[in-house]
């Protein structure tokens, strides 16, 4: 029997517009973009030119410091643009897909017979290593490191998040092959939700399984690491998304790179929420158009509403996103006397609202307003109540804000990623941008330490 870890702290946010477990078909626009910024910590060096023909799995750019880490094209076609911004920063490399997809052949391999180096070089060659992230810093992993463990969370507890168990159906074999490959690299831990029953998860082989029972953010891999094997200074842990494990499995089982995800397309402003097969970097236009509310300003988010990125209708799905969500922007709303009115439609952890008394069963429609003014941290215990790690979040954040590096290290900055603060950012009555300041401090620390 797997180890069951019960978490008490956290908050489940029930949003309207969850995707039912059925698939819808959406054609792509044919345009795809791989965005270096999605792979935090990379300095891209583009290895293709506009007009070049690429196959699926051909590198579009590599990391300057570690050229062996490749970022590959999800489709075969013609490189249509290398988009640059200020100071010639590379914003994206765009590819227009051919009608007929042409895959680069990496050769089928049986993982059981491979050594660690073989697995690693296969992943690097096919561009899948780019999806590995490391803690500390929550950046793209360094292939030269020997991590003490690899952690995979098989579920997300975020609002409107993808149900991985549904996605997994029919891909169990690839998932297990992926886990086998990870286990060759380092001891691998799989975090499973207490609600998940699929055999491929609860009886996964070659990995240590931990079952997590608790509210959001129990599905965050950082929370799971903290409870299973906390990261000490000098140690490195790699993490990989559950769906990305399937990418790895496909590579070894089929000898091809296949970056197809089954994302949840959800949110209160989506007309018909559903699961949709998309490729990493796919343009969203065909997904969004005609399928969202048109009577108000909306916000399209690549990812879930707590940790995702705001994107435009013509934008592209970000590399790690497992869902696309659409919520009202809310900037047209002017609520009168918000500090005293009952506001029955609002969701709050505070009992000065009524969501604790009459919870909305089919979920809340929450818009993107921050619903308050920016303040210093006034009320204590807010972050702590939704932060299920053995870390003092408020004190850590104060160390970050004051730029006290020693204190940050002492308080556990190396164990956290911005997403671990997402729920705290939600409940914060002082409306501080927690994830942004954590991200900035991690970038700053990485620069200092290297």
């Amino acid at each position, binding site marked *: 029997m797997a180890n069951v870890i019960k978490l008490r702290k956290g908050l489940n946010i029930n949003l309207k517009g969850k995707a039912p477990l059925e698939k819808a078909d959406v054609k792509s626009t044919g345009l795809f973009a791989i965005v270096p910024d999605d792979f935090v910590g990379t300095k891209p060096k583009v290895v293709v030119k506009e007009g070049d023909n690429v196959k699926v799995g051909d590198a579009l750019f590599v990391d300057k410091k570690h050229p062996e880490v490749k970022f590959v094209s999800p489709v075969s076609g013609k490189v249509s643009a290398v988009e640059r911004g200020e100071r010639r920063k590379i914003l994206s490399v765009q590819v227009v897909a051919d009608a007929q997809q042409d895959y680069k052949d990496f050769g089928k391999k049986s993982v059981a017979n491979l050594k660690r180096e073989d697995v690693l070089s296969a992943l690097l060659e096919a561009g899948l290593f780019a999806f590995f992230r490391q803690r500390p810093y929550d950046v793209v992993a360094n292939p030269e490191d020997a991590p003490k463990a690899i952690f995979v969370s098989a579920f997300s507890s975020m609002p409107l998040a993808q149900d991985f168990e549904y996605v997994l159906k029919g891909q169990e074999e690839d998932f297990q092959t992926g886990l086998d490959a990870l286990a060759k690299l380092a001891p691998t831990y799989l975090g499973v939700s207490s609600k998940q029953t699929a055999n491929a998860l609860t009886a996964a082989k070659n990995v240590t399984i931990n079952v997590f029972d608790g509210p959001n953010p129990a599905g965050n891999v950082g929370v799971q690491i903290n409870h299973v094997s906390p990261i000490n200074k000098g140690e490195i842990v790699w993490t990989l998304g559950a769906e990305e494990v399937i990418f790895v499995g496909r590579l070894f089982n089929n000898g091809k790179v296949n970056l197809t995800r089954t994302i949840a397309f959800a949110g209160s402003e989506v007309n018909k929420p559903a699961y949709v097969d998309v490729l990493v970097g796919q343009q969203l236009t065909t997904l969004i158009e005609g399928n969202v509310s048109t009577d108000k300003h909306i916000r399209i988010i690549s990812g879930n509403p707590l940790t995702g990125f705001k994107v435009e209708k013509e934008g592209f799905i970000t590399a790690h996103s497992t869902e696309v969500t659409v919520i009202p922007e809310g900037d047209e709303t002017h609520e009168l006397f918000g500090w005293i009115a009952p506001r029955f439609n609002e969701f709050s952890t505070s009992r000065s609202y009524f969501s604790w008394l009459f919870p909305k069963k089919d979920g809340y429609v929450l818009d*993107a*307003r921050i619903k*308050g003014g920016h303040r210093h941290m006034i009320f204590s215990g807010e972050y702590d109540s939704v932060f299920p790690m053995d870390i003092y979040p408020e004190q850590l954040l104060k160390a970050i804000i004051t730029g006290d590096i020693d204190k940050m290290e*002492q308080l556990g900055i190396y164990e956290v990623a911005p997403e671990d603060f997402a729920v705290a950012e939600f409940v914060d009555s002082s409306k501080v941008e927690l994830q942004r300041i954590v991200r900035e401090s991690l970038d700053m620390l990485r620069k200092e330490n290297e």
Partner: protein
Amino acid sequence: MAFIKNILDKMKPTFSEGGKLSAFGSLFDAIETFFYVPNETAKSYGAHIHDAIDSKRSIFFVIIAMIPAILFGMWNIGSLHYAAIGEATTLFGSFFYGLGVMLPKIVVSYAVGLGIEIAVAQWKKEEVHEGFFVTGILIPMIVPVNCPLWIIAIATAFAVIFAKEVFGGTGMNIFNPALVTRAFLFFAYPAMMSGDKVWVNQSYMDSIGGPSADALTAATPLGQLGAGETVSYDAMDTIIGTIPGSIGETSFVAIMIGAVILIWAGIASWKIIVSTFVGGALLAYLCGDAADLNFQWWEHLTVGGFAFGAVFMATDPVTACRTEGGKWIYGFIIGALAIIIRQFNPGYPEGMMMAILMGNLIAPLIDYCFVQSNINKRMKRAK
């Protein structure tokens, strides 16, 4: 209600940067957010949805929790006054008398404090913080009824500037500003703050000029206790609150209604409230008073500022402990210290003010111990 929006929108350019009245931008912003929830939306990265709670709502729930104590305090002012001059009165008669005495104090406290807050916010180009709305109502509640308005004005200005703004405003102060006001009064104008001449209001005019020579007198239970006299009030009087004392502090029942509201809304820490009472009860039981003074040990919790301080002032999140474990210790120390001061320091019959200020002082130390133990654990693990 759209017309309010129209008016505000029309006025906005005048108060914005470059407008004619841009010097009052912070004031305008405060008024605008008083009417409307800001419609600022989340940035492109980070949490896109937010809890509907903000500091404004939390702060106003604290004020709502204080309403029972305020209303009772007003009634009690009138009731004590008419009893002292020997006239019959009605419920409303007493209440309106008290309202007339109390209102100027509230107005002065708010006018002085908010004036300074708005000026500082404008100077620092920040939003006006709501914190003073609580402080501003606390101040009139913790002074004797005869405290003159000009003294309240000076003390409020002192506290807002030196206890709050110099530290960086709401959220950054070390001491509870309302208590600093009271401490300032206590040491600068001791004659206005204790004795037996300050607790019953003579007339409206006196509240402006200070107690006159032939002031009506009444002693508080703690005053009598401090002087070694028999307490002339029953336990029931102290629980209901029909006794002399600072305006908001006398009614244990009204304060407890406030405590229920605060705990229910999750705004005040129940840990601090409970541990303060536990600490106070334990020490009061251990120390004990002379048996013949008509005073039970547990009455220490119902008289003076003990309950008021425990519920409304020790729980101030900014100056209290911020770690959950620390809150237990913090409250216990305040409760215990308040009784120790009452029992062993002949100079101060009332100990709550000093106890909470001491608690504010050691709160960071308590937090430090809890945080340090987490750090030590992490360091040990690394070896």
